[in-house]
């Protein structure tokens, strides 16, 4: 996949969306006795949003550009060999 040029923006969008979806006024919309597949919609909603954030982050993490000059593990000590 093509790396995102302005990766931070999409992460921010997902984060803001996540926070919004988890705020009381939005969650409260699902506080009702309805059920789906025998599971209360409130539970489905909460865990659904949770899963959405996980999948979204996984997709974005793959597409975000690699860091410039990141520090990988330190080189092995010179006197050590495999």
């Amino acid at each position, binding site marked *: 996949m093509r790396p995102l040029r302005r*990766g*931070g923006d999409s*992460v*921010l969008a*997902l*984060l803001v969306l*996540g*926070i919004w979806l*988890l*705020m*009381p006024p939005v*969650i*409260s919309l699902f*506080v009702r*006795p309805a*059920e789906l*597949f*025998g*599971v*209360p919609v*409130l*539970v489905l909603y*909460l*865990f659904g949003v*949770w*899963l959405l*954030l*996980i*999948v*979204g*982050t*996984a997709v974005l*993490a793959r597409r*975000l550009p*690699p*860091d*410039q*000059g*990141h*520090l*990988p*593990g*330190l080189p*092995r*000590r*010179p*006197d*050590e*060999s*495999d």
Partner: protein
Amino acid sequence: MLSANVVLFTALAYVALLFVVAFFSDRRARRGWLGLVRSPIVYTLSISVYCTSWTFYGAVGSAARNGLEFATIYLGPTLVFVGWWFLLRKLVRIGRVHRASSIADLISSRYGKSMSLAVLVTVIAVIGTTPYIALQLKAVTTSFQVVASTTHTALLGIPEADLDLRTGFWVAVGMAVFTILFGTRNIDANEHHHGVVAAIALEALVKLFALIAVGLYVVFAIGGGVGEVFALPASAKVLGAEVFGPRWVALTFLSATAIVCLPRQFQITVVENADEEHLRTAAWLFPLYLFLTCLFTLPIAITGLATMPAGSNPDMYVLTLPMLHDRSALSLLVFIGGFSSATSMVIVASIALSIMVSNHIVMPIALRLAWLSRGVSGDVKSLLLVSRRISIALILSLGFVYFVFSAHSDALAKIGLIAFAGVAQFLPCLIGGLYWHRASKGGAFAGLLIGFVTWAYTLLLPSFEGGAVPASLFSDGPWGIALLRPEALFGAGGMDPLVHALFWSLSLNAGLFVLISLIKDQNPLERLQSTLFVDVFRNPADKESRFIHRSAAIDDLFVLAQRILGAEQAYLLFRDYARRQGIEEGLPRPSTEFIAQLERQFAGSIGAASARVMISQVVTGETISLGEMMRLVDETQQVIEYSQQLEQKSQQLQVTARQLREANERLRLLDAQKDDFLSQVSHEVRTPMASIRSFSEILLETRDLESEQATRFLSIIHDETLRLTRLLDEILDLSHLERGELAWSLQPLDAEAVLDRAIETCRGMAASADVQLVVGPRAGSVRVMGHEDRLNQVFINLISNAIKHNRSRAPVVTVSSAIAEGRYQVTFEDNGEGVPAEARDRIFTKFSRAWTQSRPRDAGAGLGLAISRAIARKMHGDVELLPAGRPGSGVGARFRVSLPLARGQAAPAGELERRAGE
């Protein structure tokens, strides 16, 4: 039922397994076989040290009491990891670049390598963490007693009074031994505790496996399916809890803060991070771990409420549910899972705290009391190792003591959130330090202090209510001052105690932090560090050497390195650096860069503040170059400005492109007009030329032409040449007028006299065309600014037009003048057909004769009106076509010339009166 011996044996075997895993991982890592130990999955699993026994047992208890509220503790960290790109990525980069050994070290390093700040953070961390360790000891003790009990009453939970403190003691001892063995093998922050991390990762798997196993058992074996569980009446009770309010937000925020600020999380996420790219995987894998951890929490809580005997402790449902159904193996697995979650927290927390205590409390004292003046190789290292081992023992003892003293109250139950709120005090100075250049040491210190005090007063103190603290403090306030009641500070009562404490402590903390940072200037080192931290993605750390110039004797440095790092490692480090400088044998040159690198190396071992102090002891002539630093700040600024400029430029380019397009459009229009004009001129020239050529050819070729006819043809040729000349004159005239090359001096002149002259000139023409030329009402004497001959030209043009184009049977042309609206106005009116509506718009354009119905012989080229208007405008006046009269009214075309009056021209009396009446 399991016997205590079986449980004990299993637990010991499990601990032995952990030792083996840790031992072999360490050995593999030391041999360079990092492989699995350094994988992102191990990294993610180790971060799950966040899920302690408070999660393992407590989440179900919380769900049974408060429904979905338990989820906030895991949603907060999920959000932080979703936004990893902004905070965690920066935190890890800074931690690695500056070799931060703990969160205290990072904060201290950011604020000018401040000793006092490190001490304060360490103290808060110890106070916040010790009760949490006690909580783990209690959980292990309780669960051990439950699982190993022989009576069914144990299913109700073990009453606090019956807790067997010996279990807690031996757990503490065991953890201390493990931590000391694997957590203090070396002192360098960047030489990770591979053994510990591997063991923690294994424990993470065990606790998750145990939770999922018990979850599946409860849902499918006991409950009979997901739908059935949620159909239980207890389900409605659990989900009916009203939890979506301020406390929901506060708890989510608090847990998000905790995942960043908890010392053990910092230890695992930042200090033990082996590769920054691992964060990319952890960003989604850790939230997934939390998700799976919470998946069965609700079903277990619901089933527990529905099936366990009344009075059972919900905090033990995870364990007691399988026990109720005599599932010994599953119970044992659950016990081990809970044991894992408790021990992993204790191990990592005590390592993190011991590093902080040894680096930020023992080291500074040692430096001040000159314990280390002996200068023996490795003395600092051994002091640190010893102090870390003692710290671990002390911290665990402290935890145990806390456990003993609070074991018989329920104070521990709430300690999880209280600890979170305590370490949340690090948040303002941590975030400020990462993103705000001006954040200063004074601000950080004051904010932390007030936040900590407020937290202790409003949250920690009330947790002891009924014990050592008199109840009157809470009902009346200290010394009877109601405004200072711990749970209703400044009279803000009626709030959830946690929300209340969090609000006051964090707002006072952040407020003071910002205020003092704005007031107080930073010292040079602070300013340097703030730039290196905030702009970490732009500035490599080794730039530091550009700003701090210092020199030292290489021998002194070598001795220092030997003391801190040990002889062998110091030798290797110096040899490597010497080779990099091109020196094959001997010591490296003590360059500024080398000293900076050495200081960072030391910081990884003893903390930034102590490293700086120790380096300063052997360094001479240190100067921090402010100029260089300003340049660094400038460079950063330049990069920002440059990118802004680029953005601006591209906007400007767009604007320019648009302007060019518009200009091009105008040019194209002008070009079309020019083409049109040339084509018109061509037509106007070719028509008389055609006559001239045709008649000339007749004259040349026809021998027998009658002389009368020949004379007529010659006169036509003559007329046509005159017409051509007139046309060219007009074109030139108009061209000059339009280009404004004609410079006339405008002079006051008698406009009425000029009009009279023009009328007289046209009388002959009118008579020969049988047109009646009538002079209507006149303005009387009027002076305007103008050019006499040119004005005459305009008048004649308009009168002759009216005469020529009048197709009426009894043609009449009327000329009248007046002063109106402060201007001299002359109106030329005929009784012809008027200007056709479709031609009105273009009669003032060049060659626009289209409105004439037929063309009389002596009509001009159609430039007359254009010229007249150009002349009038030169005199600041205008020529306009007035609106058409009604058809049949006898009014044809009406043209009006208007000119401004010359200055000093008095308006006629009538005009004045009319104006006065307005």
